[in-house]
């Protein structure tokens, strides 16, 4: 166990935000979970008791008849905002006094930094470079993430759970977002920060960074496994393989979705449903590609003279 290495990584000034991000994400997940559970309990209670549902104010917060439904922004909201501003300022002050912004040697194109890391918030994409070519990891993926995020309000047709925390009413959308944000985005950042060392190789926390380490990895393309090594065949095979993933995966996902979300399925239009399916399949393809790479040493699925997937 090389504690010094571990300390060096986690105390690098630009990594401190990530060290802070971890407990913050955990805390806010807990805070959301707590409120979702309370609301879900209330929902269950009201569903079971229609008479109560007619009279209840339907929040988990205290309520008494005669209380005003609305309160003045001045002072009740403004004082919270003012307090928040002061607290953030204090945190920033303390942070800025105790920790200095990094400043390395002057930029030198002839002296490559190893590892050369993107800013921490893009490390998820850099991590994807291990498994995908740059045009996918660096261009297509960010574009699809943005498009996917923008599509969310238009493909989530579930009218429940608008304006309150809940889990039971939105299991599917919440787990999907959780998967995308926490599992794919945040944890890839953590891997990129704490695990990836020189040569972008995998070093467990506490393992000493060995700048001379070389890993011999013999990666094959999927068509090679089937004895296809010449070009038109490789390309056609890849097209079929990717096509098969979308068809078979799509049909499988379809059954699952229809089984567990019949109402959403009934509500969604043709366009909504297919957009969601397409985005879901793309998202699921990430861990899948990672898995076949790690388990079977497969580099590309689809090889063409112009691009590889």
């Amino acid at each position, binding site marked *: 166990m090389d504690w010094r290495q571990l300390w060096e990584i986690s105390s690098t000034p630009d990594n401190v935000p990530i060290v802070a991000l971890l407990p913050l994400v955990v805390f806010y997940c807990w805070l959301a979970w707590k409120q979702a559970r309370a609301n879900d309990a209330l929902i269950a209670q009201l569903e079971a008791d229609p008479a109560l549902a007619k009279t209840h104010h339907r929040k988990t917060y205290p309520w008494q008849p005669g209380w005003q439904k609305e309160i003045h922004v001045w*002072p009740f909201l403004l004082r919270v905002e003012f307090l928040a501003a002061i607290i953030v300022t204090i945190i920033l002050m303390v942070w800025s006094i105790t920790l200095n912004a990094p400043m390395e040697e002057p930029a030198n194109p002839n002296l490559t930094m190893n590892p050369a890391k993107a800013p921490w918030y893009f490390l998820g994409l850099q991590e994807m470079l291990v498994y995908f070519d740059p045009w996918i990891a660096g261009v297509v993926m960010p574009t699809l993430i943005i498009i996917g995020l923008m599509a969310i309000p238009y493909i989530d047709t579930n*009218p429940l759970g608008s304006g309150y925390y809940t889990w039971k009413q939105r299991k599917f959308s919440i787990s999907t977002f959780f998967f995308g944000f926490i599992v794919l985005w945040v944890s890839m950042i953590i891997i990129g920060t704490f695990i990836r060392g020189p040569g972008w190789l995998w070093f467990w926390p506490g393992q000493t960074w060995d700048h001379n380490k070389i890993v011999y990895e013999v990666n094959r393309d999927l068509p090679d496994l089937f004895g296809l090594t010449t070009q038109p065949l490789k390309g056609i095979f890849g097209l079929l393989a990717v096509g098969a993933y979308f068809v078979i995966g799509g049909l499988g996902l379809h059954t699952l979705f229809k089984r567990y979300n019949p109402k959403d399925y009934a509500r969604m239009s043709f366009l909504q449903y297919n957009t969601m399916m397409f985005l879901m399949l793309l998202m699921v393809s990430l861990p899948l590609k990672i898995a076949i790479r790690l388990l079977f040493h497969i580099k590309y699925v689809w090889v063409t003279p112009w691009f590889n997937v």
Partner: protein
Amino acid sequence: MADETKIPEKTPPPEKKAPPAAGNGKGLLTSFKDDIKSLPDEMKGKVKDQVEAAKDPAKTQIFTSIFRHKHDDTPRNRALGVLSNVFLHLHPAKINRDAVRYNYTWGMGGITFYLFIVLTFTGVLLMFYYHPTKVQAFRDVLYLEHDVPFGKILRNMHRWAAHLMIIAVWLHMFRVFLTGSYKKPREFNWNVGVILLVLTLLLSFTGYLLPDDQLGFWAVTVGTNMARATPMLGHEGPFGSQLGMTPYNDVRFGLLGGSIVDANALLRAYIWHCIGIPIIASIFMIVHFWRVRKDGGISGPAPVILASEVKEARR
């Protein structure tokens, strides 16, 4: 041209009455003596009035010219305090009693905005000391670190606020998702938010290069190298070379103003970072806040809806 000398003839001056208190007919010298004699008493009275007025500053002319309403604690004045203030009037006068609970919004949107203000403030101060040129940029940052009074804490605050802003935007988006606040009628504002998220990341990224040190240089090199691989628009991307892309005309060249990260890239990053993106982001923020209001204020905490109450439209 009017003949000025004729004007008095056209409108004869009003009949000359004795000026009311022009010394009460006394001679100039006597009235001067009287005036001096009565001066202390008169001034004492004025001072007394002044002191009296100062006890209630809200009634002074200066005060009433600034604040357009009284400030005693009445519901009307509480509302006016928000509505008649240009900085506060994005708020409604009254809100849902539970919406002020920290638990619901986590205050993350507001904190993001506050951090943007902090960044603008510290950023402008940094601009006083920084030249976006290869010769000076690195030295300017060193100078800030070691010689400029409070330069170090200024730079630190700018940097850490930037990191914090990214964390806050992510958490804000997370909370908006978890409360289902992107649902009708807030779909559009969610999209404005997504654009703000991208702009926030770009702001931070363009700033990364500015110290012109190894860290920023390689981070931006790694980042922009991906642009080489843009399909069709990058010289290493799919169909790029077939469409005539070279390192000297592709999208990366456009971003960097050259084929490597050098002086032009520094200048471009600087302009995007200090002028371009902040202006665009401010415009989107204005729209974002406006839409929060127009869409009916904060989405909750709203009363829960039961599945049994939803009327299903058949499809």
